[in-house]
């Protein structure tokens, strides 16, 4: 590192953050792609409801629509936070 570099502010190593954010958003957008336009909205509303009860991550809810020989299956999956087993209220 040069003498003058000590005087300049070093930019943050932010590429790792970028990669992690992209990994999540790309996976999320792929899962609702090709489905009806309401899927992302449905996902977000579900997420809001679930968050009233459990503090899950923003990428915890997965909504997919599968076409299966003639009929469509709407599949929801919710990943609950680790170490906190669901308590019966």
């Amino acid at each position, binding site marked *: *590192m040069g003498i*003058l570099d000590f005087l300049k502010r070093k930019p943050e190593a932010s590429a790792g953050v970028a990669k992690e954010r992209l990994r999540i958003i790309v996976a999320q957008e792929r899962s609702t792609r090709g489905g009806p336009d309401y899927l992302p909205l449905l996902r977000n509303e579900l997420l809001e409801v679930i968050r009233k009860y459990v503090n899950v991550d923003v990428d915890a809810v997965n909504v997919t629509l599968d076409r299966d020989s003639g009929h469509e299956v709407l599949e929801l999956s919710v990943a609950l936070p680790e170490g906190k087993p669901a308590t019966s209220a």
Partner: protein
Amino acid sequence: MTEIIVVTSGKGGVGKTTTSASLATGLALEGKKVAVIDFDVGLRNLDLIMGCERRVVYDFVNVVHGEATLKQALIKDKRHETLFVLAASQTRDKDALTQEGVEKVLDELTKEGFDFVVCDSPAGIEKGAHLAMYFADHAVVVVNPEVSSVRDSDRILGLLASKTRRAEKGETPIKQHLLLTRYNPNRVEAGEMLSVKDVEDILGISVVGVIPESENVLAASNAGVPVILNDDSNAGLAYKDTVARILGRELPLRFIEPVKKGFLKRVFGG
């Protein structure tokens, strides 16, 4: 057989026109007969990058509307016998291009014995971008190591796999080539920029080339000479490698390692 290549990205300003010009020129250097078409209706630019802006008389929309023949509208490149440019129209009417019209022009280029047609797509995912990709056999998806560009290119990859003629007809899918441009290995090493591997991991597809960020690109556009013709430029050489890979040759990636600074720069920074 004529192969149609779309150069697309979703996000604007990532280097589609720069890439289209160098790709088309590179294919011509390889002895192929090539037409490069500007699909950016209303924002003609490819003619400037190719250095033929003063010779545009008729454009793509004129041909589609039967106001000129394809022969009249194709501009022969000054430097390469087998390279032709079809300029975009300056009309503000975004509906000037139709799917049938585009198909007609591509069919005529096929009959004329062109080996490759390179389609320079406009930004976005609207009609113009859709028309540019619809008939393609290959897609070069231009991406910068930057969050919004990577996300948009994933959307484009999704559209290529579903909203194109090959997809609709259930034929073999479009061949997708991911081209990472404006890459700066020093910034990658400093952890400030997504690496080749990061981008490949996120998108789940490997790159066909990596074009370094280079001041030669601006100089090339200033002069109207595609950067691939500059053999002293890393960007130009990286485009040459990319063309070779698209033609099926295997070459290792170059210019993706950081450049070590000289002694003076190490002392004084910069």
